[in-house]
């Protein structure tokens, strides 16, 4: 029996469907990633899963217990780290931890020890008695995660926990998640960074416009695009026209222009590269750099949606 089972999850705001029938499951000790761009519906889906948002349809079962907004028992199994810094800025780290711990029903002597333990894990022991408003962004992020760990959850749910942090903090956050997963915690992790999903997750679900487009291990997902390479060109000039012309080339599967860059999918890129560069130049654009990559999740995303993950 999976630890988390999500079926037919659906939510719309007014006429806009934010989450459109999402199904997936997470096994014990598995790390599952939801990879998708801004506005894909990741936060909306997660909010329904942790029971802070009413759903229009669907079901969420955690460790055999159905969960909705009014559930109390099932919520005790989950540790939730929201995308925003949901912290009392006028309180210290220790006070924030203690408060949420008590809402999780922790108390007594174990509470104090647990707070110290968490402070150690998130590396805030030395500054535990400072107000959060004096923290750097990275420190606040780590505290945000620490609160989600207080209740030793069976399932840890993190919503883009590395947004807006420096590379060093980001790395330490990723390491923490890896370690927790290694200790047997199941993790649901959303991100729009392909590298994070590739590094952390046993399985990844690719989400766009409220729908799960594909799901599987990295290898399975990459297999979907076959032996296709991803070519990224930094370029200037009429990129739109260049893309139009590129799409007419045989073998070019997809082409996309973004902020002074063109991305395309093409099998065996190296043999096609001269013609690609010619086409771009002919369209009146000047190529500065070219990068050819083996297929990765970004390639998969482009393949599935025709869009770059980040735009």
């Amino acid at each position, binding site marked *: 029996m999976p630890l988390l089972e999500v079926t037919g999850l659906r939510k719309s705001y007014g006429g806009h469907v934010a989450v459109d029938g999402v199904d997936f499951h997470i096994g014990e000790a598995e790390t599952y990633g939801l990879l998708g761009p801004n506005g894909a519906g990741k936060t909306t889906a997660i*909010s329904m899963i*942790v*029971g*802070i*948002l*009413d759903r229009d349809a669907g079901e969420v079962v955690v460790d055999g217990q159905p969960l909705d*907004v*009014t559930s*109390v*028992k099932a*919520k*005790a199994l*989950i540790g*939730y780290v*929201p995308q*925003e*810094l*949901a*912290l*009392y*800025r*006028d*309180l210290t780290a220790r*006070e924030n931890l203690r*408060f*949420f711990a*008590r*809402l*999780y*029903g922790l108390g007594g002597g174990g509470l104090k020890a647990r707070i110290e333990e968490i402070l150690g894990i998130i590396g805030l022991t030395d500054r535990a008695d400072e107000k959060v408003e004096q923290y750097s962004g990275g420190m606040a992020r780590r505290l945000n995660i620490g*609160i989600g760990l207080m*209740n030793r959850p069976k399932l840890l749910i993190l919503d883009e926990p590395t947004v807006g942090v420096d590379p060093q903090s980001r790395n330490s956050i990723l390491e923490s998640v890896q370690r927790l997963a290694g200790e047997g915690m199941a993790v649901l992790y959303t991100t729009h960074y392909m590298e994070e999903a590739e590094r952390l997750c046993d399985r990844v679900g690719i989400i766009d416009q409220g729908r799960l487009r594909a799901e599987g291990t990295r290898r399975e997902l990459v297999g979907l695009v076959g032996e296709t390479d991803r070519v990224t060109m930094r370029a200037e000039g009429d990129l739109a026209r260049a893309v139009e012309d590129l799409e007419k080339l045989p073998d070019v599967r997809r082409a996309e222009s973004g902020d002074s860059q063109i991305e395309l999918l093409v099998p065996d890129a190296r043999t096609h590269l001269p013609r690609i560069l010619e086409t771009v130049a002919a369209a009146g654009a000047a190529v500065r750099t070219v990068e050819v990559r083996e297929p990765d999740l970004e390639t998969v995303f482009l393949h599935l949606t025709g869009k770059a993950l980040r735009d």
Partner: protein
Amino acid sequence: MKILVIGLLNLRRLFRDRSNIFFVIVVPFLMIFMMGLMFGGGQPHRLGLVGGDGGPLAGRLATALAGREDVEVVPMATEDEVRTAVERGRVQGGVVIPSTYDADQRAGRQVQIRYMIRSNDMRALDVGTWVRSAVPREAALLRAARFGAAEGTTTFDQGLQVAQRAQVPGVEVQVTTAGRSVFPEGFSQFALSAPPLLLLYTFLTSLTAAIGLVETRLTGISARMYATPTTAWSIVAGETMGRLLIALFQGLLIMLGSGLLFQVRWGDPLAAAVLLAVFSMIGAGAAMVMASLFRTPGAAISLAAILGIGLGALGGTMVPLETFSPTMQTVAHFTPHAWGYEAFVTLVRHGGGIADVLPQLGALTAFAAVLLPLGAWLQRRAITR
């Protein structure tokens, strides 16, 4: 239990911010002080005095009139000056001693002392009671002295000294009202504005809970609380408990402080406290409803001010409810303030107890019973929708 955890956290956060300490402690004391000024319990009554042409007997009367600690005699030059001072409320009463006072007294002629007050000034009643007891007491002494002089046993002045030493207890004049009066005896008209003021203030304080509620919702903290195994009811109850306690604490502080320092009457303490508690809960419920409707604390604070003052005015806490037209009185009873006002009137003016204000308490409890669950429901909906 979790209600308490959340409530206490709110209190902790409230006291961490120094400006809130001002709001919680200093403002109630300002209120007490304000009430003190209004009731004048701590201020001396001022009595304008003119006449007597500097005669020693007139001087004695002036001294006698100044013989109460909270009465200050203000000598004046003319009767007109006294009248103007009374009219403008600079003095609560004016005493006019005829210029022939000494001579008439010694000659045993009838003397008329005139006492002027503003007819609608309740504090003047109190001074009047004093004047009406001080003057006859002096008259008794003078009568004794004159009796001695007439009998030929002493001179007038010697007789006066003897009479003075004899310390006749004198006659205290008691003014009583027959039947049931709108205002009890010796009752300052201003004392009427203390309970309404308290209602107005308590309600406003409770309404400000809306600001904190909007803030915790915006920061995602509320959502995070809902992600813990805590019921929606506990969260909402806890979130408002802090403010509720503050409103109650402030209310009781104002009641006690103004009662002790300025003799403001609040009636039966238990009934007053229960009234205040239910009233704060209504405010807290209204705060929750408001908080669920707004996306910014600024909008919430504006509506809190408008509602707090608007409902207060409509409910008769600014202009007394009794002065409203019958239609307006009916309208007023759609606000909790009118019921609170009525209840306090019963407690304060007529010495009622909790049993006498049951209808009003019932109405107030009904307000709370609707607003609190509605607020809790709306709050949950604002987060989980």
